[in-house]
């Protein structure tokens, strides 16, 4: 909690927004004592700004500065009151609906959705017409007109939190429902409550000003809305007295802007993807003697002293450290490693598909004689997929959900010069059949396929341009073992037929050993051991490789024994610092 507030304060947008808001809050609190009585008639009407009246006078001869300053008080008070009330009502209804579920949820969500589609201002006007005037009416009317959106947001949040394991864990512990809502769910909604409150206040200020401008507020009081109401009433336009309505409008906009900034800051803190990545200083790769040597003949891919750095808030962090390996044509090369070892980064690095925060800081990637690190944008685009293609870990999310498979095949083929749609579709059918799927699926959308089918589509897509190398990044991790085996068998069969090489990336070392010719083991970005599968199975030399191998229980070996001694200490090691790439768990 404190930590997140501290982070908020460090945020630039939050700092700017917060200072503007603070300024107006202070103004609202102490301002009325600093200026003259806003309803006092101090000068001739419609006087332009002068030293006596810095902002001029109104159509009645009141001081515009005083009106603007004093107006902040009720406007902000009502704004925050409505913001708070709407947040509470919305949270209460939303959390109740989301947590209790079933009938209660049906009834409450229907009500919420109905209120959501009923336009708010007309509802507020109609409601307001029947209630006695005053700030309380404003609060009531705006709350009724505005709670629904919030309830919807909180219901969604409660639904997602309700299904989180820690709620089930609390239930299993024997906690009561009330305590689960109060101590388990609500504290997790703190940031949502905060951003909702800010958003609702923004809504409240805007709607309040609008209603008051229409004369539906208490025109006897001094607020920003009534200031504008009087400006329009006293013919500010006609007399060209811009100074009457401009200061109030700018104040409203500044408060609104500050709230927008704050809510956007909270968004960025809770959703790191929205935050601009730290600037990466361009790095010129240093070419050492080892890198400069030409690629050996008969080698498809040579990775030479590759280093990849991530820009983090604490400075660059090396994720791939001086990695070199070769892949021969038609070879299956396995890369093994735990999460954060940099194995996927290498895979993406081969295609120069690194996220904006990452840079190849050193080394070369030679593919069939071309230096991939030196390709310009057009050459790179031509190189991708036609030379090296990729199968992603999750074909679920990698395929474009809104295009049919045929279209996605067509895009791929067309981008590399094969343009006709008919030809593309024919090729797509052929490829789908090749991976054991019905050719009719060209007209299907990704969501109509099961996970295994999608992964096959991923492979078919990867083979569309008959590349020489296919990078497979944990292509079977999300699949059941039976499906995994089917898929791998199909893949190897195709490899035999088409002769492409495979870079297979996974954390599952036994699997790698079963399918690869050679395997490289990564630890903390360094390649600690590269050897053939046979030799590694027979006896790995590096302790980390041995550790990995021993971590996997075997079905046949009689190893149901105590853990190896060096493992007992691992539990006390500090939590590894996760890199920006993985961003923790999912």
């Amino acid at each position, binding site marked *: 909690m404190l930590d997140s507030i501290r982070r908020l304060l460090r945020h630039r947008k939050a700092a700017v927004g917060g200072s503007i808001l603070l300024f107006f809050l202070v103004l609202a609190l102490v301002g009325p004592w600093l200026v003259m009585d806003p309803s006092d008639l101090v000068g001739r*009407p*419609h006087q332009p700004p002068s030293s006596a009246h810095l902002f001029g006078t109104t*159509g*009645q001869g009141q001081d515009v500065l005083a009106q603007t300053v004093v107006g902040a008080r009720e406007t902000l008070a009502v704004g925050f009151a409505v913001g708070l009330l709407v947040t509470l009502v919305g949270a209460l209804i939303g959390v109740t609906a989301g947590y209790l579920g079933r009938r209660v949820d049906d009834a409450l969500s229907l009500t919420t959705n109905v209120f959501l589609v009923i336009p708010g201002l007309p509802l507020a006007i109609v409601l307001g017409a029947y209630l*006695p005037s005053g700030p309380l009416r404003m609060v009531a009317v705006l709350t009724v007109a505005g709670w629904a959106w919030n309830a919807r947001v909180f219901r969604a949040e409660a639904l997602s939190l309700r299904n989180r394991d820690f709620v089930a864990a609390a239930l299993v512990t024997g906690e009561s429902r009330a305590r689960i809502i109060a101590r388990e769910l609500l504290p997790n909604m703190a940031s949502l409550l905060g951003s909702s409150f800010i958003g609702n206040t923004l809504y409240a200020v805007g709607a309040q000003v609008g209603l008051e401008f229409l004369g539906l507020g208490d025109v006897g009081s001094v607020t920003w809305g009534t200031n504008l109401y009087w400006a329009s009433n006293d*013919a500010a336009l*006609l007399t060209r007295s811009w100074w009457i309505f401009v200061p109030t409008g700018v104040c409203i906009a500044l408060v609104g802007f500050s709230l927008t900034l704050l809510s956007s800051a909270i968004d960025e803190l809770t959703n790191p993807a929205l935050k601009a990545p730290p600037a990466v200083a361009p790095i010129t790769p240093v070419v050492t003697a080892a890198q400069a040597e030409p690629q050996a003949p008969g080698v498809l891919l040579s990775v030479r002293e590759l280093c990849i750095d991530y820009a983090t808030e604490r400075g660059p962090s090396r994720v791939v450290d001086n990695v070199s390996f070769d892949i021969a044509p038609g070879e299956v090369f396995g890369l093994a490693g735990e999460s954060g070892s940099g194995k996927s980064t290498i895979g993406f690095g081969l295609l120069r598909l690194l996220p904006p925060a990452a840079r190849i800081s050193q080394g070369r990637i030679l593919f069939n004689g071309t230096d991939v690190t030196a390709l310009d944008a057009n050459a790179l685009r031509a190189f991708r997929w036609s030379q090296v293609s990729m199968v992603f870990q999750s074909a679920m999310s990698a395929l474009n959900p809104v295009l049919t498979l045929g279209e996605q095949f067509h895009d791929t083929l067309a981008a590399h010069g094969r343009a006709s749609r008919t030809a593309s579709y024919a090729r797509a059918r052929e490829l789908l059949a090749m991976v054991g799927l019905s050719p009719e699926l060209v007209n299907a959308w990704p969501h109509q396929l099961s996970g295994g089918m999608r992964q096959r589509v991923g492979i078919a897509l990867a083979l569309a341009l008959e590349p020489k190398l296919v990078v497979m990044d944990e292509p079977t991790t999300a699949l059941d073992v039976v499906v995994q085996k089917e898929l791998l068998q199909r893949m190897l069969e195709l490899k035999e037929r088409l002769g492409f090489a495979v870079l297979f990336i996974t954390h599952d070392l036994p699997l790698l050993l079963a399918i690869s010719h050679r395997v490289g083991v990564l630890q903390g970005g360094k390649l600690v051991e590269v050897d053939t599968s046979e030799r590694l199975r027979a006896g790995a030399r590096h302790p980390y490789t041995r550790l990995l191998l021993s971590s996997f229980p075997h079905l046949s070996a009689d190893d149901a024994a105590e853990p190896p001694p060096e493992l007992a200490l691992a539990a006390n090691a500090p939590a590894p610092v996760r890199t920006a790439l993985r961003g923790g768990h999912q």
Partner: protein
Amino acid sequence: MKPALLLVPVLVLVVVLLVACTSSSSEPRPRQPGTLFVSVEQQSAWVRNFNPLFTGAGARWPTRAGVYECMEVFLPSSGEWTPWLATAHTWSEDHRTLRFTLREGVRWSDGRPFTAEDVAYTFELLEKHPALDSGGAWRFLEEVRAEGTHAVAFRFSRVYIPGFSELAHQPIVPRHVWEKVADPVTFTNPEPVGTGPFTQVNVFRNQVYEMGRNPHYWQPGKPAVSALRFLAFPTNDQANLALVEGEVDWAGNFVPAVDRTFVSKDPEHHSRWFPLYGSTVFLYPNTTRPPFNDVRVRKALSMALDRERLVDIAMYGYTRPADATALNDSYTGWRDAEAANGAWVRHDEEAANRLMDEAGLARGPDGLRRMPDGQPLELELEVVGGWSDWVRAGQVLVRDLRKLGIQAHLKTYEFSAWYARLQKGEFQLAIAWSLDGPTPYTFYKWLLSPRTVRPVGEVAAANWHRFGDVEADALLTRFETESSPEKQKELMAGVQRRFSELAPAIPLFPNPSWGEASTRRFTGFPDARNPYARLSPHAEPDSLLVLTRLAPREP
């Protein structure tokens, strides 16, 4: 490529904007000469309704100002009645029968002759549909009879001289048209047939409508204006913009700082005339509640008010403080100088404090006045939230009352809530209007007559302050049956003196009747030097006089 759909509206927008900006329509087109642009009603869109009988309805302004006419027209400036559809009227000896002689040669706009049958039928409609009888003519009428084609006799159920104005101002509708109307209360009369100068609806759209000349108008050669055109202005601001820009020739708007924003723009042509012919604005104390049942308190409140300042602030100085008779300028001839001189409407804080002390409402140690039972005197002044001039006035009044040691608060209500409280007498202090008629009779009846007092909780049409004076009522009752102008004046002077003495309500100021005109295209508007009618187009039916007098300026 579906996001490309986003481009479609953008491209359309660009093309359309280019077309619109290059098209010739950006140059102003010349106006039809002879068309008078009038701004009276403020509406966002026009709804076609020309029903002259139902006053509560939102009939378009020309209905009673140009399409339908009445028998005689009252002129406040002279206090005289001008013959219109009737050329003369006579009372019978017993003052129980009133006869109008109708003008010969008048024809309806469809060419049919106007006869006494039409007049009689109009009043029969009022009898049959009480909702149409807003003036309550059938409370004193017994029978209406056409006597031949050009005379109508009204038989009264009792002697009631003030009833004349109700009858004379009633718009007359053609029998041959209205006979076929199923329900005259809900009839919108889209194609009006009238005797007035402008009866033809040339154009009717939501933003504009135009009324053309009556081809059969009875005043030969008139009207000289060929058509009336009405633009929809939903707000005062917009209407005033059009006025200032010279788009409108005749208007009845409240224009803030009118001399600066409007007249000075074109002093040669722009003119305004705000005669004080509107209803008088009062501060009504609820006289059923202490301390307002004490005349000293009412007078003290009145003397605490700085009306000069009030008029300056709330009314931009367009009016003057009310005198002790509370009469507006259309009753100048009736005003009794002695009554008008009552000191209790003059700003005198010292006297006000003295009166309060006398009334037993002494100041406490904190300077606040207390009721005899020791309760601090706390008052709420009620106004309509949306009526900005009254809110301003209320703010000024509350300040003045506070100086008197009264804890006064301004409280705003929605109109209906405010009006319900006012009508039922559930208020302490309220700002409200007065009821007016051609003579001060109606005005004072609703201020003073015990016959108009309703118990608290029951709806009253006026006399919200619930005050009755038997002595004044006797004078008013005699006035009802008095036909001699001298005697009438004498009786009314007595009423005024009673009013000034009793101070049942606290007059603030008479309302101006707003009227602005531009003589760039038309001449003949009334003004202070030539007050043949009120300039304000709101003043129906004397706008008939204006519309028949105006003439396009020669090019």
